[in-house]
């Protein structure tokens, strides 16, 4: 079996697990963690494709930038979750419906 198929299959499985968590859970932090699984799956696929590319350094640069941005969005989302918990004493995303506007 081709090696890239193994890596891409693993990426699909991880993405499916993350998607399942994102859809089925309603705790905000749990959804954030599920989204991070999706990020891991995406970057694994990106690196697998980059290894097949004629210029793998470009894929490496994109992966570096994506990792940096992912670290930043974790900071934002955790801050929002903490603020929401302080205000509402709950971490249920359904409570956010009342916070529109």
């Amino acid at each position: 079996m081709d090696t890239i198929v193994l890596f891409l299959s693993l990426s699909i499985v991880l993405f499916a697990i993350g998607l399942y968590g994102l859809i089925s859970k309603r705790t905000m932090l749990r959804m954030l963690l599920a989204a991070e699984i999706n990020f891991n799956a995406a970057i694994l696929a990106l690196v697998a494709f980059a290894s097949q590319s004629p210029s793998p350094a470009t894929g490496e640069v994109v992966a570096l930038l994506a990792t940096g941005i992912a670290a930043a969005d974790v900071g934002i989302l955790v801050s929002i979750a903490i603020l929401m918990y302080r205000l509402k004493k709950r971490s249920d995303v359904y409570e956010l419906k009342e916070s529109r506007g």
Partner: protein
Amino acid sequence: MIPLELALTLDAGTIVFVALAAVAVVSAILVVEHKSLVYSALFLGILGMANAALFTMLGFNFIALFFVSVYIGAAVTFIIFSVSMFEEAPAVERPVRIVTLVSVVVAGVVLAGVFALYFTGGIQPSYISYRDLASLLTEKYWFALLIAALTLVTTLIEAITIARTEEAK
């Protein structure tokens, strides 16, 4: 039990890959399903470590180092500490609906189709010099690097502002 013929045909790289893939999948399931958020965040770190090892197998050592130091060392650790300080409120999870399972299956089929289009030869480890990478970042992709740096600074300020809103009141 693995048949003897199959076990003999497996090379060391495949065995390592299977072990890392098993760790990654089990960790991902535990991230979603573990009752404690702290342990979920911990398993996310283990998933990241397995991912970094897979990057090394593909020949991207620098990404693996960066991933461990920035993603696991900063982001996942930040989640673990935040969740530890977070007084976890019990939320009643809804039972799994059929639409959830259908969505996951459809996403898997679509992704498999996209990847199947890309089906090419075997992966050859790509060894990239750090000098080339640095020159590529600072010369060809300097604008993307600038935007990423500004994004990081902006999100840092935003995170501090959001977290301090309650204290300001």
